[in-house]
């Protein structure tokens, strides 16, 4: 049961990483800020500028 829960947590963490939610949390922690709509927009604009400057794989 413990292993199953650990596996579930890992999958959720993976989905949050792909969805940039983890990166957003790291951004908040690194800058000592709290979540707000404006903060998310600031973060996502910077993140996406870097992300979509690279080609997506075929």
């Amino acid at each position, binding site marked *: 049961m413990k292993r199953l829960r650990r596996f579930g947590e890992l999958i959720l963490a993976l989905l949050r990483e792909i969805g*940039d939610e983890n990166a957003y949390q790291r951004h908040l922690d690194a800058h000592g800020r709290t979540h707000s709509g404006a903060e998310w927009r600031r973060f996502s604009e910077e993140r996406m500028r870097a992300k979509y400057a690279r080609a997506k794989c075929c």
Partner: protein
Amino acid sequence: MKLLGTLLWIAIAGVAAFCLGGIAINRGEHISSLWLVLAAACTYAIGYRFYAKFVAARVMGLNDKRATPAERLRNGHDFEPTNKWIIFGHHFAAIAGPGPLVGPVLAAQFGYLPGTLWIVIGAVLGGAVQDFMILFASMRRDGKSLGEMAREEIGKVGGFAALFTVLIIMVILLAVVGLVVVNALKGSPWGTFTIVATMPVALLMGFYLRYWRPGKVLECSVIGFILVMASIFGGQYVSQSASLAPVFTWSAMTLAVGIIVYGFTASALPVWMLLAPRDYLSTFVKLGVVLLLGLGVIFVRPELQLPALTRFVDGTGPVFAGKVFPFCFITIACGAISGFHALISSGTTPKMIAKESNALPVGYGSMLLESFVAIMAMVAACVLQPGVYFAVNSPAGVVGASPAAAAAKISSWGYAVTAPQMAALAKEVGEQTLFYRTGGAPSLALGMAHIFAQSGGGQAVIGFWYHFAIMFEALFILTILDAGTRVGRFMLQDLLRHFNEPLGRTSWMPGVIITSAAVVAGWGYFLIQGVRDPLGGINSLWPLFGIANQLLAAIALSVGTTILIKMHGAKFMWITCTPLAWLVIVTFSAAWQKIFSPLPAIGFLAQAERLQTGPQTAATATLIFNARLDAAICGLLMVLVAVILADSLRVWYGILRGTSDARVTEAPFVLSQLRAEEL
């Protein structure tokens, strides 16, 4: 315990050899897809346990005491030590595109054997080694890109050629994936409505994420997924409505123009509005479908209907022309070895590796998983009746313009199919026709629908699964189109700023519009060329894309070889030189044949010459120009890679003779302070 482990590995090796031997020598009877799955899985296990671990320990000398860039340069953004399984999934999601799905489906025209062997062996000895090597090299160089490493390790020429090759690949890639979508949706109101409906869904997700529930990506993606599923049911309703069906029944040319307009508009819109939300959604759907397909194949264990080898190994295939050597090896790129992966392995991933040993599962392991996806695609194609497979994938220019003529032609090859049989199948999946749906996506969707329907729901739900598979493929292809156009625009703006400063500014709207239009015009031209091509477009464009992609892999392996020579002299250079030599032989043979083959179905110049002997119209003149343009691009790619190879050979010779600088340009050793609980 050690003895037990040894016995286990002997057993796994035995199963791999038995299954590979089984599929290689079997003739004349249908085999279960489980043979392919077991052959692949056991070979991957052996490759990972023995070959990859040998490379990691003896050649690369991965050292967990050495701090990675993620630790040394940690900034909470790009550089962040991340759990190895999370980064594994992240990396896999980034390298898995339409390539490993479409390539094997097209290569199935040779039968399942050549493609399967290439996917398995190519990945273990080539593709996974390349990805792992470039990831390792980038990780030891503060996360540098392939272009930067090519410049540093080989020289400026190598760096420039890598950049230029990427730009050409992008243009061809975007055209070819656009053509895949066109051929999947032409004359299909169900499919077209579903895909059109995903656009307002993505816009809604964009606004939801930006203004209503900022940061709630998973929540937003779940809502998006529900709406996209609803659009599949909506598509069924539209296809059955006498008034709505004609509105969404589009010709190939209308769809191509629609995709070009979409590509231009989407790439000029703010990223948050359309691209980003759909990218999140398509990545989640992609991972889910890959998992579902894997479980479906293992659970259903469908029988393969296509033979091990078809008569088309002789080069007369209707899907694309050319013999099994070299064309099988450029048709399947991403499932076996793909140069594009080197860009990902030297992009985000090396900046997130927490410990050096994690590069093994992430770099080598992710490629094995991608290869496994290609095996699933091969299975999905081969579960179709051969006659059905060829009816779906053959262009009208090869098999005849009417269903009856096409069925008669395909049956004459020994792969029985009838027009009523195809009509019944089309009706079953909710399509008007399944003839001439070249490009691989529709036959993959048919195969997947077949497997999913057998897993539950039966024939009653096959139409839903077919359109679900089409939606899944189109969803991430449109994301690639959008993102690729944007990247091409950045590259072009970067180039143009040397001549005209405002054109280089990404914030100056006229510059954005002009450069977006130029990039869209580039791939749009090839897309229209593909639609007009009497041989279906895929015959010309997919080999061009395959050659370009494999040549990029040759550049990456040249970089890898240079690094290995600097580290160990000639001792271990065979690790990257063997796949490099194979790729050079394959791609140069294929490119040479595509340019100079006297057969018009293969050679671009012969094609142009034949067209010149026929009646001269404006359309013929365009086709002649296109054939010559394709030949010129092929030639340009060959020259570019020949230059890089010559430059690399010069560097290697110098290092081995002691006349060139053999210093390894790695970042200095810093002792890792990372604690286990930080991950």
